[in-house]
């Protein structure tokens, strides 16, 4: 297999002589990475096109059979609750467009890396990412027909305030050089954080009756095993090629760990608050998928090269018991301007939160919900009418607290060319100050609203520009989804069921 693969794939390369090699590969010099021998790149998969198409076609055949069966049998009615779909709305709006971005930029690597081995691995990943984009759309398309929040996900990814968090993350990676992209996405995203990001969504799906999402997710994860391998090979290859690469790679790990970790804040609140039937707490997921697997496994292996765990990792560990609560509390109050709904965690949910967060929930967050319970009794569900200030780097509202004090908001300020910029954490400030010319370019949704670039000055103007319709956001209870869900279930003995929308 190895010889066959070598002959079929790697030996296709030749040294150009009619044009300069540096003109053929113009992007692999400027980042300072030194590569002496591209043939040292190991690709343990040794996949050839015939084997690839055979197994991928088989996987898709199985997946689409599940999607068709689920759609034909009105499978959406067997979910635990319509509110479960908020997790999937967030996924389609926030994650699916990233798969597409990955597709485009792995095509860039498949052109611009000098070695044929990594180019072929990148090309496989590029079309895998197209697969993920499309299987996600096709899976969630069926829910879009019946439920709010899905219908305008593409435009919203480009425009809506909370979606600029994942969008700016990936834009950051696409605008970096090929080696930084490899570390940012191939390694940090696809290896370091992939289980933490994806497995909770897929497990959430399986716990809440969402067979199609579970099927596409697990089917995609089998591709991920190749992608994780590419990411790991990439980092080892860079580290082994030249000692001078080590500090460059370390700085990228430091940057991209924190950048990616901030995006997973959306996963944290999803796990702890959005799933009607809980899978595991964020804290538990973080401990298993990050602390145990990555810090306990991966970084032990990378220590050989002089690589240390990411800078600011301690800040992430320190906030594992407060992160989801802070993020959901913010989303709860701003969901009137979002394409998902939120609701008050009921008594069972609060019991679960207290059990899973014995050190923080009752002390710090239950009082907030108790106050909100009184608001609700008085008919005054709380929404914040103003606009939040956003972090210049991760673009999450400035809702995080000081690492050692969960009651004091963390706010960092940097000055660049005489102008002040706010960041949410030590990690984001460090990232900003490393590349201020990059981050001052950020398209910050709230700034853009104030500058009049988002449909108009009022909240309804902006929501219209977001393409948000009645029922997409706000409170779940009494929403269009909630009402339809109940009527569809109550009308089981009618021969024909209409919808309310």
């Amino acid at each position, binding site marked *: *297999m*190895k010889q066959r693969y070598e002959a079929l794939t790697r030996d296709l390369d030749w040294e150009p002589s009619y044009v300069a090699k540096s003109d053929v590969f113009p992007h692999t010099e400027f980042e300072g990475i030194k590569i002496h021998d591209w043939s040292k790149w190991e690709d*343990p*998969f*040794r*996949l050839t096109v015939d*084997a690839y198409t*055979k*197994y991928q076609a*088989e*996987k898709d055949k*199985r997946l689409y059979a599940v999607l068709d069966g689920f759609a034909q049998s009105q499978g959406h009615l067997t979910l635990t609750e319509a509110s479960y779909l908020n997790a999937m709305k967030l996924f389609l709006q926030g994650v699916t467009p990233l798969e597409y971005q990955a597709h485009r930029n792995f095509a860039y690597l498949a052109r611009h890396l000098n070695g044929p081995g990594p180019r072929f691995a990148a090309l496989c990943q590029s079309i895998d990412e197209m697969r993920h984009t499309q299987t996600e759309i096709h899976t969630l398309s069926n829910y879009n027909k019946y439920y709010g929040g899905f219908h305008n996900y593409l435009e919203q990814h480009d425009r809506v305030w909370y979606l600029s968090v994942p969008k700016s993350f990936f834009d950051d990676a696409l605008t970096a050089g090929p080696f930084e992209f490899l570390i940012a996405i191939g390694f940090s995203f696809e290896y370091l954080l992939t*289980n933490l990001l*994806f*497995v909770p969504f*897929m497990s959430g799906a399986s716990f809440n009756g969402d067979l199609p999402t579970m099927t596409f*997710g*697990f089917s995609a*994860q*089998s*591709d*991920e*095993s190749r992608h*994780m*391998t590419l990411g*790991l090979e990439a980092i*080892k290859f860079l580290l082994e090629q030249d000692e001078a690469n080590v500090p460059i790679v370390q700085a990228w790990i430091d940057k991209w760990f924190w950048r990616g970790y901030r995006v997973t804040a959306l996963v944290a609140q999803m796990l702890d608050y959005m799933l009607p039937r809980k899978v595991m707490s964020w804290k538990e997921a973080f401990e298993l*998928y990050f602390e145990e*697997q990555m810090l306990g*496994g991966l970084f*032990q*292996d990378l*220590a*050989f090269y002089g690589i240390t765990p990411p800078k600011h990792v301690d800040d992430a560990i320190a906030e594992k018991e407060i992160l989801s609560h802070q993020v959901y509390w913010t989303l709860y109050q701003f969901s009137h301007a979002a394409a998902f709904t939120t609701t008050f965690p009921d008594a069972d949910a609060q019991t679960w939160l207290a059990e899973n967060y014995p050190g923080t929930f009752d002390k710090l967050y239950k009082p907030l919900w108790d106050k909100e319970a009184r608001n609700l009794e008085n008919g005054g569900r709380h929404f914040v009418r103003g606009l939040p200030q956003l972090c210049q780097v991760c673009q999450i509202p400035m809702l995080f607290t000081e690492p050692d004090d969960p009651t004091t908001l963390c706010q960092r300020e940097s000055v660049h060319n005489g102008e002040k910029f706010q960041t949410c954490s030590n990690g984001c400030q460090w990232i900003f100050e490393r590349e201020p010319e990059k981050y001052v370019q950020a398209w910050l949704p709230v700034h853009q609203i104030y500058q009049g670039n988002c449909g108009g000055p009022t909240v309804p103007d902006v929501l219209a520009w977001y393409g948000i319709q009645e029922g997409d956001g706000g409170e779940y209870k009494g929403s269009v989804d909630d009402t339809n869900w109940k009527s569809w279930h109550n009308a089981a003995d009618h021969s024909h069921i209409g919808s309310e929308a």
Partner: protein
Amino acid sequence: MRITAPGRLVITRESVEERLGREWETHEFQLAIVSYFGHIKEWDDDEIVIAWDH
């Protein structure tokens, strides 16, 4: 089902074929795996080796 092994995990074609009672290509593993952690060191016709280098 979750499988863990300290340091090194080897899946051989022979042992899978024995259990399944039919021919099995190592690439078929892709149809079964749903998530993974570790380092895929070797993946050839006869075996899949998941192990750390250092």
